[in-house]
């Protein structure tokens, strides 16, 4: 029997039965985990960023313990890897990549975009990060240092971007609405309009 040639649905059913029989994971736990994974989206991370822009205490919490900051907003983090938050400033801009595979902070950003997993992004984000940013239309000011974060092990990383000019007086919801997944990976920066 060659396991690679078996019907994948039958394999999945068999695997789930074995996991349940051995007491490793019940049907209910697997169903719940799939629902949590499917529900996660960049909107979760965007809510965190918008709150951090409005609330200094929350910003501090986010930078010291990203997972707890996510849970504060109702984002489930149980069983998830630790979440590190990288703060962009007028002096440093962060760009996240996983050169080894496709590690991604799924709990707060959902499924990774297709290009994040591409061989070309993974190679070029470390070799020519400024070139990659330019292709995304992100032209960093001369004085800004670029810090690439290669997500190689147990942490997952998201970027806390800078609040753009022209958003003074905006509500948290309106701020969250302009924050895109690329802003929290670091390929782009939030735009006011």
């Amino acid at each position: 029997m060659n396991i690679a040639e078996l019907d994948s649905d039958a394999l999945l059913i068999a695997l789930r039965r074995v996991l349940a029989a051995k007491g490793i994971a019940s049907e209910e736990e697997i169903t719940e985990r799939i629902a949590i994974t499917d529900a996660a989206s960049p909107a979760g991370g965007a809510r965190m960023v918008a709150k951090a822009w409005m609330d200094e205490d929350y910003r501090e919490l986010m930078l010291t313990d990203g997972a707890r900051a996510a849970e504060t907003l109702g984002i489930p983090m149980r069983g998830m890897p630790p979440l590190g938050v990288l703060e962009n400033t007028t002096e440093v801009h962060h760009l996240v990549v996983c050169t080894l595979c496709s590690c991604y902070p799924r709990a707060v950003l959902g499924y990774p975009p297709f290009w994040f997993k591409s061989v070309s992004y993974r190679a070029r984000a470390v070799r020519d990060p400024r070139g990659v940013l330019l292709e995304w239309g992100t032209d960093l000011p001369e004085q800004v240092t670029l810090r690439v974060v290669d997500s190689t092990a147990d942490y997952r990383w998201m970027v806390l971007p800078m609040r753009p000019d022209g958003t003074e007086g905006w509500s948290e919801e309106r701020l969250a609405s302009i924050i895109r997944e690329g802003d929290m990976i670091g390929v782009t920066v939030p735009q006011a309009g």
Partner: protein
Amino acid sequence: MIAPGTQVRVRDDWPETRGPCHIRTPHYVRGEIGTVLRHLGDYPNPEDLAFGRPAQRLPLYHVQFKRYGLWDGGRADDDILIEIFGPWLETSS
């Protein structure tokens, strides 16, 4: 434990030439000099976990490398942060 600010050299080791393995240390920093920024906690060794072997908890560090030394071009002040497990890091002392 390696203190923040300590200069380290990543082991110039290539286990993939010796047989099946699972390595979380990118090839492009093997043998390179970096600086430990902070200890990120202790985690089970992925090199054993990947094969279902009992995995010892190892210290994981965030290590900073200057981009400038790794590739041609680029700016001298740009850098790369990488998570690297303790056994891959050599200290000179």
